């Protein structure tokens, strides 16, 4: 994976450094392998972390070999800031294992797919985006479209923009990324973050790539504080209380077989961190299409609607209201419906970015409501 980058850098001629580099490479490989063993698909967090370690090693002649522990990350950032070495040119290995060099702080950035564009916008750097995909135009005031609506991107439009960095979300974009690399643009292909921690890492990384390292670190740290406040409270509650059963409905294009969420989705991670349990935690795929029977049978205590009439915006299509959900055939038997706990949430709440911490807070509030009602029911 990210190991290829280590052997190419010729700056370190002497024997000691070669051994050092080798040992760091082995260590990074071990981290990646351990992560692969723990989880079937390697989390993007680890990949991002590994690539950061790479870059760090490239920049410095002495490496701290314990850097792979998460608790050292903050310290690592501080160390980097203390160093007077120039940040650029910056050589990195991206999440697809390919190396890139960013010669100077990029001012003309092309970002493709909302999961990347939103992170740049969260950092307050959207004005550097000169080209984005069709879905992200609202988030980037200075940018023109480079395609995306029919899952193809226009390499000519990108070449015309002459970007000094291209950020691409992995997933159906591989061919385009390759075309851009052949034109010698620096391309960073970014894995889809599969956890909140991975999102924080990506914020740091993008900050660093854009020459705004402190800004990225500060935002990530702020989000981490809010994240910890909620998750620690939820963890404390879960010592004594059962988790609240949550059903989250993403889309009801086929009303009788709605899409919910399953393992591998950020939604499920957030529900669990907030003290709930996804009723479809054992389903196949991140966004399973489920039937009403299994929903009624699972008897959720809290229903969250992502495509609601209450919070519809111009992107909503055929939304449904909480009242309509309650009137579905057979749904009157569900605890959440009986308790009036059908809660609309904004449709874009779970999109990748700083908003995910808002999502965590909103879900935690809803779960707190459900807990209060459950306690009342038990008392009565």
């Amino acid at each position, binding site marked *: 994976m990210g190991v290829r980058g280590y052997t190419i850098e010729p700056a370190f001629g002497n024997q000691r450094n070669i051994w050092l580099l080798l040992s760091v490479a082995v260590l990074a490989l071990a981290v990646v392998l351990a992560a692969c063993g723990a989880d079937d698909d390697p989390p993007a967090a680890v990949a991002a972390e590994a690539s950061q370690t790479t870059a760090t090693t490239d920049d410095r002649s002495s490496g701290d070999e314990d850097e792979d522990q998460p608790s050292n990350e903050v310290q690592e950032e501080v160390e980097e800031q203390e160093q007077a070495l120039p940040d650029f040119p910056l050589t990195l290995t991206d999440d697809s294992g390919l190396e890139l060099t960013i010669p100077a702080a990029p001012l003309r950035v092309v970002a493709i797919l909302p999961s990347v564009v939103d992170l740049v916008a969260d950092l307050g750097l959207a004005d550097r985006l000169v080209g984005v995909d069709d879905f992200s135009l609202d988030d980037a005031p200075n940018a023109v479209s480079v395609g995306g609506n029919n899952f193809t991107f226009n390499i000519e439009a990108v070449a015309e923009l002459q970007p000094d960095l291209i950020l691409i979300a992995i997933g159906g974009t591989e061919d385009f990324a390759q075309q851009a690399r052949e034109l010698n643009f620096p391309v960073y292909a970014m894995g889809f973050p599969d956890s909140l921690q991975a999102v924080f890492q990506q914020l740091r990384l993008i900050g660093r790539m854009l020459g705004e390292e402190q800004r990225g670190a500060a935002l990530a740290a702020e989000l981490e504080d809010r994240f910890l406040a909620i998750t620690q409270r939820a963890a404390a509650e879960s010592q004594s209380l059962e988790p609240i059963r949550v059903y989250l409905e993403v889309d009801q294009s086929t009303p*009788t077989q709605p899409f919910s969420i399953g393992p591998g989705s950020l939604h499920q991670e957030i529900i669990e961190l907030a003290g709930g349990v996804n009723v*479809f935690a054992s*389903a196949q795929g991140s*966004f399973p*299409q489920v039937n009403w029977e*299994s929903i009624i049978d699972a008897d959720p205590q809290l229903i969250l609607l992502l495509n609601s009439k209450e919070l519809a915006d111009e992107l909503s299509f*055929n939304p449904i209201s909480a009242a309509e959900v309650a009137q579905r055939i057979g749904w009157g038997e*569900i605890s959440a419906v009986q308790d009036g706990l059908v809660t609309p949430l904004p449709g874009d709440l779970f999109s990748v970015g700083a908003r995910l911490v808002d999502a965590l807070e909103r879900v935690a509030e809803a779960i707190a409501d459900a807990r209060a009602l459950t306690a009342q029911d038990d008392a009565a």
Partner: protein
Amino acid sequence: MTTQLPLPRQLPRLAGRRLFAAPGLRSVVLLYGTGALLLVLAIAGATAVGSASISFGDTLRILIDSLPLIEVDQTWTNAEATILREIRLPRVVSAALVGAALSASGVLFQGVFRNPLVDPFIIGASSGAAFAAVIGFLIAPQAGFIIYGFSWVPALAFVGSLVTVLLVYFLARADGRVAVTTLLLAGVAVGAFLTAAMSFLMLTQSDSQFRLGAIFSWLLGGVGTVGWDQFLLLGPFVGIGLLVARALAQPLNAMSLGEEHAHALGVSVERTKLVLIAASSLMTAAAVAAAGLVAFVGLVTPHAVRLVIGPDHRRLLWAATLYGAIFVVLADLAARTILTPTEIPLGVITGIVGGPFFLLLLRRARGHYVF
């Protein structure tokens, strides 16, 4: 030019209603009796199994309790009763309806076209329904349009299916006649056009992976019925279609000898063709509205049944109806239980199970298959 085509020697007269030897009473009882029994068992079995685990005893008690004038002491929860009565049973029965409709219209289409490769979707029923359904998924107005349990997608699919078949029929019509070859080719051409238009809509109008996911799973078929409204509305179409088809089974037998022969036997070929296509298209449209595009059932069930009982349409129609219903009830059972709670598209199951089963039958017939 009008040389009299030689008639097969033992061709009985149609007036005597003896085109094919009448089946013996015993074999009829055996065929239909077994089929009906299997269908009841399949429906009962499929109703007892689902992602909610309800014991077989409770299933029976709930069903018996649902009958008028019978009270059973409640040993089940209200949620279990709701799941059985309002969700599972309507779905299982709708699956039976879909299987019956597709198999029966498969028999009729194959008979009318005298072509073993034909299925109910051949003259535009599927592409028209798919195009209209995609409009329902992507473009239909925001209002939560629901009428008699129908949202936009099934309603538009039903209309789109019928309108397209009608269009193809009149495109293929010349001098008051519709040649089956022209009809087939017109169907293929219109189908290609609509499929391309549908793909274009899907690529340009969809802004959400979920909407695309919903479209794909609709295109692969799946019984999405909840409650009884849809079944009660679509059932009559299938019932009427079946009765009309049965009334014309004997003329259809005559047409299987060739349209000239059928004409010589006194069959009004063009009118029979029109009525049969209308009846089977109604049944197909009803099936499409209830379950999307369930592939393979309408193609293979008629062949499988024909391999066993021969080509007489009078028997073939009812047998295909029964066994098609059984096939789809069981396939739907698999679709909703294999990966529960995730739904597998029904067409995936019918293809994976039906294909090898049909090949097995074909091998066992050892080339003696009479179409």
